[in-house]
């Protein structure tokens, strides 16, 4: 055990281990019966029907909602491809299904199968309890109408799996943490230089509001062209980069502690966001504005997630393979030794604050795109989430050490814990307590690691 704790694996990838343990835990904790509504499930149902009766007449029953609609469409396409006939696709509540089926009975249309996803099938019409098979239920209608006499209800096979470990849920977690993680890239660099940036949450709001405002004022509001939108977004982000630069200059040239400088910028940016927006969200109806936040250029993967992964790869390369990355570590580890080695310490510091501001602006853009508006309340308390992700990821607030990929893992740990707690029914306030404990545990672990897992040194 002791040898294991001291191994390189634990010191480098200890947080990854924690993330995997959490994944495993929530996978088990949310284990249960799954009733699939996927297109795969639709294909499976179609195959089952055709294998039983080649030219089956089928009625499909789905409820309103994207998932079931898609299920119905896919099932219909598959059945027709295989030679079956879809008599009708009924969309709506159980009573709608009942009415439609009665009509079909009255028209004497033969129905062999009624296919529905589990949720749509589980009601008093399609699957009544024994002894409650009233005249509105399928068995009741079958007694009355001959054409329905042989109708069998069929639904996709259910199986046991974790509600947590599904593709949809994992992508949702990644999407949810994406903007926090993106800011955390900049924050990691700032913290490695032994600094801090409290302004990122406010800069998110500022960027979103100023961009929305520019789109409304200058780019033609709802008729804005793609180029106009791009310019406004870049402008919003650029202004955040300028705020970051300002912080960097204050920190280097005037030697004001970063905590104070960025606290000031935090208030200024939040205030400006409220003033510009008149405290109300500025909505953006322009076509294409939702591309960044809610579309998927790579099928199935939301754009913020793609962007996050891309930025982390770039930042990792920057920190491990470039001169600038090396300088950032050196400035954090020993600024005087770095300066006396000819490292342009001030420029390095200004760069990290500028980048952090820029990334906060990008995060604001993602939020604005997601909600199609610039809200002055975006990112309230976000700076603490970001710092938490960095710290949980193993970066020392004392500066000089830390890893970009550690931060990604840190952000994911936080996202997984939140998501897992939501699914296992842990209340909001309890979540805060757990979150706080997580941060303390991360810092404690870091300290223990430094002194080789001895309590006394």
């Amino acid at each position, binding site marked *: 055990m002791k040898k294991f704790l*001291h191994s390189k694996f634990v010191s480098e990838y200890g947080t990854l281990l924690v993330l995997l343990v959490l994944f495993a835990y929530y996978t088990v904790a949310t284990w249960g019966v799954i009733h699939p509504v996927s297109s795969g499930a639709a294909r499976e149902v179609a195959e089952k029907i055709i294998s039983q009766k080649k030219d089956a007449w089928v009625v499909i029953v789905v409820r309103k909602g994207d998932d079931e609609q898609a299920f119905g469409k896919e099932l219909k396409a598959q059945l027709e491809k295989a030679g079956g006939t879809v008599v009708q696709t009924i969309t709506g509540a159980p009573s709608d299904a009942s009415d439609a089926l009665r009509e079909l009975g009255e028209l004497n249309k033969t129905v062999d199968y009624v296919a529905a996803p589990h949720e749509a099938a589980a009601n008093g019409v399609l699957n009544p309890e024994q002894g409650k098979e009233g005249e509105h239920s399928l068995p009741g209608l079958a007694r009355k109408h001959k054409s329905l006499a042989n109708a069998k209800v069929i639904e996709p096979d259910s199986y046991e799996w974790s509600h947590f470990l599904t593709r949809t849920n994992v992508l949702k977690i990644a999407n949810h943490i994406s903007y926090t993680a993106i800011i955390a890239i900049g924050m990691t660099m700032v913290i490695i230089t032994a600094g801090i940036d409290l302004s990122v949450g406010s800069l998110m709001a500022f960027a979103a509001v100023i961009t929305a405002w520019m789109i409304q004022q200058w780019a033609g509001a709802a008729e804005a062209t793609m180029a106009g939108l791009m310019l406004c977004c870049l402008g919003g982000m650029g202004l955040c980069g300028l705020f970051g630069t300002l912080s960097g200059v204050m920190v280097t040239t005037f030697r004001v502690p970063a905590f104070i400088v960025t606290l000031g910028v935090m208030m200024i940016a939040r205030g400006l966001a409220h003033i510009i927006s008149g405290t109300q969200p500025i909505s953006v109806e322009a076509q294409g504005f939702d591309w960044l936040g809610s579309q998927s250029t790579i099928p199935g993967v939301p754009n913020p997630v793609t962007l996050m992964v891309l930025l982390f790869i770039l930042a990792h390369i920057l920190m491990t*393979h*470039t*001169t600038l990355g*090396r300088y950032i570590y050196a400035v954090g*580890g020993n600024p005087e*030794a*770095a300066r006396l080695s*000819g490292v*342009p310490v001030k420029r390095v510091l200004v760069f990290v604050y500028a980048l952090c501001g820029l990334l906060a602006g990008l995060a604001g853009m993602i939020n604005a795109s997601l909600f199609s508006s610039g809200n002055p309340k975006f990112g309230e308390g976000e700076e603490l989430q970001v710092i938490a992700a960095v710290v949980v990821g193993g970066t020392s607030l004392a500066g000089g050490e830390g890893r970009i990929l550690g931060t990604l893992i840190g952000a994911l740990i936080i996202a997984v814990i939140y998501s897992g707690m939501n699914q296992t029914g842990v209340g909001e306030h309890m979540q805060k307590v757990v979150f706080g404990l997580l941060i303390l545990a991360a810092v404690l672990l870091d300290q223990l690691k430094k002194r080789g897992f001895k309590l006394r040194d």
Partner: protein
Amino acid sequence: MGGEGTSDVPLLRIAGVAKAFPGVLALKGIDLELWAGEVLALLGENGAGKSTLIKILGGAHQPDEGTLELDGKPLEIIQPADSQAAGIAIIYQEFNLVPGLSARENIFLGQETTRAGFIVADEERRRVDELFERLGADIDPEVPCGELSVAEQQEVEIAKALSQNTRLIVMDEPTAALSPSEVERLLQVVGELKAQGIGVIYISHRLNEIFEIADRVMVLRDGERVGTRSIGEFTRDSMIEMMVGRSLDQEFPKVFAELGKERLAVNALSRGNRVRDVSFGIRSGEVLGLTGLVGAGRTETARLIFGADHPEGGTIELDGKRLQIRSPRDSVTAGICLLTEDRKAQGLVLGQSVRENFGLPNLPSFARLGFIDQKREAKALDVHVDKLRIKLTGPDQSAGTLSGGNQQKVVLAKWLERNAEVIIFDEPTRGIDVGAKYEIYQLINQLAAAGKAILMISSELPEVLGMSDRILVMHEGRLTGEITDVANATQADIMRLAVGTADMAA
């Protein structure tokens, strides 16, 4: 033996103490006896095991094997408090004083003299006066320690140790940061302690001091006791030989390189009171020694040349061209480098690897479009590791875990790779053991032979006399003298210049 007649049981007896760390056997069966009223010098290269032994006495480490006895009774030290309770005080290079508290408050910190919860300052003051008198110290006990000189703070530390009925004091490199006159003063204090029957374990690389005050010398090498002899049985050379395990031809292997044309020319350099109108030149192949008392402005001069501070006046020329130096970045580009006195605070990023430290000033030449060619970097480092004989477990060893000598070599390696033409050494051998010192001297010779211009700042007069082609002496920010005939100069000649003309007139 210092303690003869007082008792037939040694004050401290260490028998067969061994200590292993993962991968290293730091101490292998050490025996040691210390008598009351005796000064035992502990000698050894860095990494020989001196610090481990001290830490065992101080309670920071527990021995794996072996026993400790105090007055013939078994002694177990599990934590620092045990050590203190047994009357053992350790004075580290870094003092444990609260800068904002006065000498008196520091001495009684944690053991205040109180009546009904109130501190009885008068009583404390009386005891401090007593302690200071015992030491012959002249310090105002009510001045915050942060305002005291290093030497005075050290005396406060010693007084604090005495206030706790200490019988054994361990001093770790106590003179490393002291000026020559302060060293004299400290040696007197150690004499006082000795006279009062306190046992002293004295660790120093400065052989002169050891000859002056030690009764016996114990030499450690690679965690083993090489031998313990009384001081009379040693000569300088035999002591060095015993420490490094091989014979050195001489302490200062000076080679006179051929002097070429003037490379660096400093003209009327000034900054405040610390550097006043300093002008000198260094020729190719020349080692220019710069010395003076602590605070004379030597380091400040070097920092101005290097661009670490901004001069208020004066010019710097390299090979006849005037340099515009606004920051170390400019001087590094021009080919001037500085090996700082404090390697840990200014020379190295301790948390980073040797390779990363080595690369720091050289990245522009290792990188293309900002991407570092790490193979090229590692290869370049290899060359210097071989040439400078740097002892590493690998290029990714953390710089903070190297010995002082190896740290100095890493700093040197990064500048050599940079092809520096003017090399400024500020106290090049401070805190470095004798073996590594010798190697540094040889490197200085090689650099001079390669036609570099070298400025060597040092407080160690034998070193200045032994290694320089020419010597400049500073006093209160001004150059007060130049010695060109180094071979016939003496330490006294330098000291006369170092204390300044004003003092000579008086």
